[in-house]
């Protein structure tokens, strides 16, 4: 069988998107932890343009950008499909993936910023959650219907990390009373065995992101 390698960083939501896709499809891979403050020559060779993780390397051929990697995985390994088979439903799924990608910065901004900037991030992320809940998820259990799909994976990474950020900045946004269906979705998503078994250690994450926030805020003063 051709070899699959995945270069990542343990706390990256983008990495986990790819892990979830590989695990859901039962694809074996070798994981390589990258030190982003001291990037390996291999990473720089595989992703010369962005020098970022995740990078999937399949039989020596590198693929970059988490959602592009997932589309590749979907095409190479059709079992447990992550995209619907109908072209219109696929287009809808891709629309929501793009939406999530476009709106993601606000979620990070809530964590990274303070004052007015943070207030704006709070407003923007709430608005995004509202649109995603009402128009993306609707009455469905998962974005993919009865089982998780590409949109669940794309958004799931944002939502899970967002939970950690909310705790650090002591601001609750994705609450059950404000977003009942999305909150229920998050609970269900994190109960899916592949997801539950493949999440970074929460305490470790809290610790890491707390430290990073302090460092970056004091650096910008």
């Amino acid at each position, binding site marked *: 069988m051709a070899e699959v390698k995945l270069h990542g960083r343990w706390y990256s939501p983008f990495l986990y998107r790819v892990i979830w896709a590989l695990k859901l499809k039962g694809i074996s891979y070798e994981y390589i932890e990258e030190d982003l403050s001291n990037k390996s020559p291999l990473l720089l060779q595989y992703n010369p343009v962005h020098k970022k993780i995740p990078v999937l390397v399949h039989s020596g051929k590198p693929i970059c950008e988490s959602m592009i990697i997932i589309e590749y995985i979907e095409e190479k390994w059709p079992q447990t499909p992550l995209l619907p088979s109908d*072209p219109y439903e696929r287009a809808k799924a891709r629309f929501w993936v793009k939406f999530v990608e476009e709106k993601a910065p606000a979620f990070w901004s809530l964590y990274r910023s303070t004052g007015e900037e943070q207030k704006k991030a709070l407003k923007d992320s709430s608005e995004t959650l509202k649109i995603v809940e009402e128009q993306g998820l609707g009455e469905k259990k998962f974005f993919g219907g009865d089982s998780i799909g590409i949109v669940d994976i794309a958004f799931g990474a944002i939502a899970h990390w967002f939970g950690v950020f909310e705790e650090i900045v002591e601001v609750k946004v994705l609450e059950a009373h404000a977003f009942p269906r999305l909150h229920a979705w998050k609970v269900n998503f994190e109960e899916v065995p592949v997801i539950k078994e493949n999440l970074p250690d929460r305490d470790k994450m809290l610790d890491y992101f707390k430290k990073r926030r302090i460092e970056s805020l004091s650096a910008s003063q």
Partner: protein
Amino acid sequence: MEKQNEVVLFGTWASAFCKRVELALKIKGIPYEYVEEDLTNKSESLLHYNPVHKKVPVLVHNGKPISESLVILEYIDECWNNTPKLLPEDPYQRAKVRFWVNFFDHQIMARLLPIIMTRGEEREKAIKEFNELLKVFEEGINKDFPEEFPFLEGKTLGYLDIVVGTALCNYEAFHEVVDVVFSPEKNPVIMAWVKALKNHPLMKETLPPHDKFVDKMREKYLDQYP
């Protein structure tokens, strides 16, 4: 009467994103109805079909709307599964094409506004950065598609051609209204590619007329950033 394949495209004539879809439809030989939108007075149809973004382009196929130009292009390629194909068949090639289109949209095109908004030294710096990014793009395309570059010479237009062509073929308008940013000296590969694209009959048919486009750009950019 039997329901045909009904395709309606909501767009604006000066938008490269809308031109992407028009070009894709023409490449595939798909008949469509075009509806020009006034973005200062959006139609009920547009708001109904794209409630999330309220933007063009929107493709409506047998009453079902699809938004976001790149999503629409992939939809067109999958739904009208005939030759010519817009994206390559091989998954690894597809991943590379998607990567470079993503880079083009998010890295390169994002650098035009900083040029428009600045003057003097700041603008020179912005133009330099733009040319450097184009160079990265050129080198990347050359490396990833060694057999195919330049793309044309009897070949049909593909996903990358569509995206690059609709964005850059009217570069002379940008030169006239804003500043000279594209040159064969700085970016020979891109310029050769754009030149070939400009001569393609479907591209010629799709692109907005130069003078009209210049007026629109003046209105859009100079009025906002005098």
